[in-house]
């Protein structure tokens, strides 16, 4: 049972539709007129001895190609994979193989809206081994050869691949600049801006599998968030006697787990006087001690300030 077994698709003009019915081994593909349901054509390639067990079938959005997965003749033997034919002439345009074994089962097949990419998923029944479960092919080149729009399609595809490459290189090259900007922001204690930049940067890096940058951003993000939490907690510890972690999270917009670890560390390092309760996930502050501590700090600072400025 599958979703794509026996597909129905409309041609772009909406006047005809094509559909594929799978029986046990063989299958039928027909084109019918929509208004009258008259049979216009039966595609014959599935009767061919080279194409067996066609299970999945999809059609290009422009209505020109038929893409199907099954068992196809590969030299003397049969292989499992995808074939693409022109609907009009049933001419074979491309054959992509996934597996020689007959244990490979297809689950899903799709073509991108521009008709340039083809994806196939499946699995192997006997699977103690690592097996291909997802493949993506670039169909643009072969399509262009048959469409005689060679240059246009190929250029479009090449441009897209080039763009992705350039983006990756750009991100790598920019790393030094970006890291400098972010470090500067952290130095200035402008954490919110730094977090914003880091998140954006990390997201971009993720799109291109740049793990080094992702790891670096994660580390910096964590450091920034810890600073934000500390600032918030110090701010709140004199105002309230007891706070829940989710309330602190609401105030500073950081996830709970990091808040708990930070608060625990702060208590341990005696940055605040408080106690953390695991069961209720809340912190009880010793308000008076905190206020006194801050007062002490302020007096110390005042003294230092008077002394330093007095010197000048």
């Amino acid at each position, binding site marked *: 049972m599958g979703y794509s077994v026996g597909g129905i698709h*409309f041609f772009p003009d909406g006047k005809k539709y094509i559909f594929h019915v799978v029986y046990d081994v063989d299958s039928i593909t027909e084109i019918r007129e929509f208004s009258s349901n008259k049979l216009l054509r039966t595609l014959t390639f599935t009767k061919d001895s080279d194409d067996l067990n066609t299970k999945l079938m999809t059609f290009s959005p422009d209505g020109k190609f038929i893409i199907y997965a099954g068992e196809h003749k590969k030299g003397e033997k049969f292989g499992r994979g995808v074939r693409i034919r022109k609907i009009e002439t049933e001419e074979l345009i491309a054959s992509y193989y996934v597996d020689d074994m007959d244990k490979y089962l297809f689950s*899903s097949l799709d073509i991108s809206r521009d008709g340039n990419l083809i*994806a196939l998923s499946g699995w192997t029944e006997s699977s103690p081994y690592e097996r291909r479960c997802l493949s*993506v092919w670039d169909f643009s080149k072969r399509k262009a050869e048959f469409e005689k729009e060679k240059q246009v399609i190929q250029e479009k595809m090449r441009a897209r691949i080039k763009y*992705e490459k350039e983006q990756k290189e750009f991100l790598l090259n920019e790393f030094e600049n970006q890291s400098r900007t972010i470090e500067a922001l952290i130095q200035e204690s402008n954490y919110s801006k730094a977090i914003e930049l880091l998140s954006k940067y990390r997201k971009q890096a993720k799109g291109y*599998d740049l793990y080094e940058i992702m790891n670096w951003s994660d580390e910096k993000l964590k450091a920034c968030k810890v600073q934000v939490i500390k600032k918030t907690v110090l701010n709140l510890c004199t105002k309230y006697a007891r706070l829940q972690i989710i309330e602190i999270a609401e105030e500073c917009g950081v996830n709970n787990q990091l808040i708990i670890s930070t608060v625990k560390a702060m208590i341990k390092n005696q940055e605040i006087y408080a106690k953390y309760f695991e069961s209720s996930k809340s912190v009880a502050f010793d308000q008076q001690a905190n206020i006194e501590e801050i007062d002490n700090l302020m007096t110390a600072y005042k003294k230092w300030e008077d002394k330093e400025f007095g010197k000048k």
Partner: protein
Amino acid sequence: MVEKDLLWFLNGIDCNVKSVKFSPSGEFLAGVYESPGGSGYSVIFLFNPITGAHLKTIKTPSNGIAFFPSSKYLCSVEQSKLIIWDLITWKKFKKLNHKSNRKFVYGITSFAITPNEKYIISGAEDIHIWDFPSGNKIHTLKGFGREIGCYIISLAISPDSKFLIASPHSESGAKDKDIKIWDIKTG
């Protein structure tokens, strides 16, 4: 050996990919991953279609997926539920429950979204037409094979969003290829 035209691929150890779909915008390739052995644990992975980089994971049990034509939403199916995900906030946007009077054997077996995004159509042993974005059910279409094990395997919508074609699949082996056509608006 480099395979011709192969852009990228994934190898899996003991894992199934049940469904793959490109987003109409060309931004994503979505795949439903399932751990084998019928544990039912599955997630939706979103990849960059050209580079194969993993972009996002939606943790939800799922049997099938489809993107909306505008690529703003993703629709996933779990048994008899349709879940619509907002691809900007990555949150659940709507949940539709396909209930049937008859004994439900397979859950939703096919679904489709009209090109104008006004209706969502889900097919199981009968067909439901839902209004979008309100999520109200506006029609229930019946009239398919009465035997148990007959369900809608494929749905297609005309490019003008007016008509629906559905084909049934019969487990009992009857070569039933009756294709039926409906007007979506009037049912």
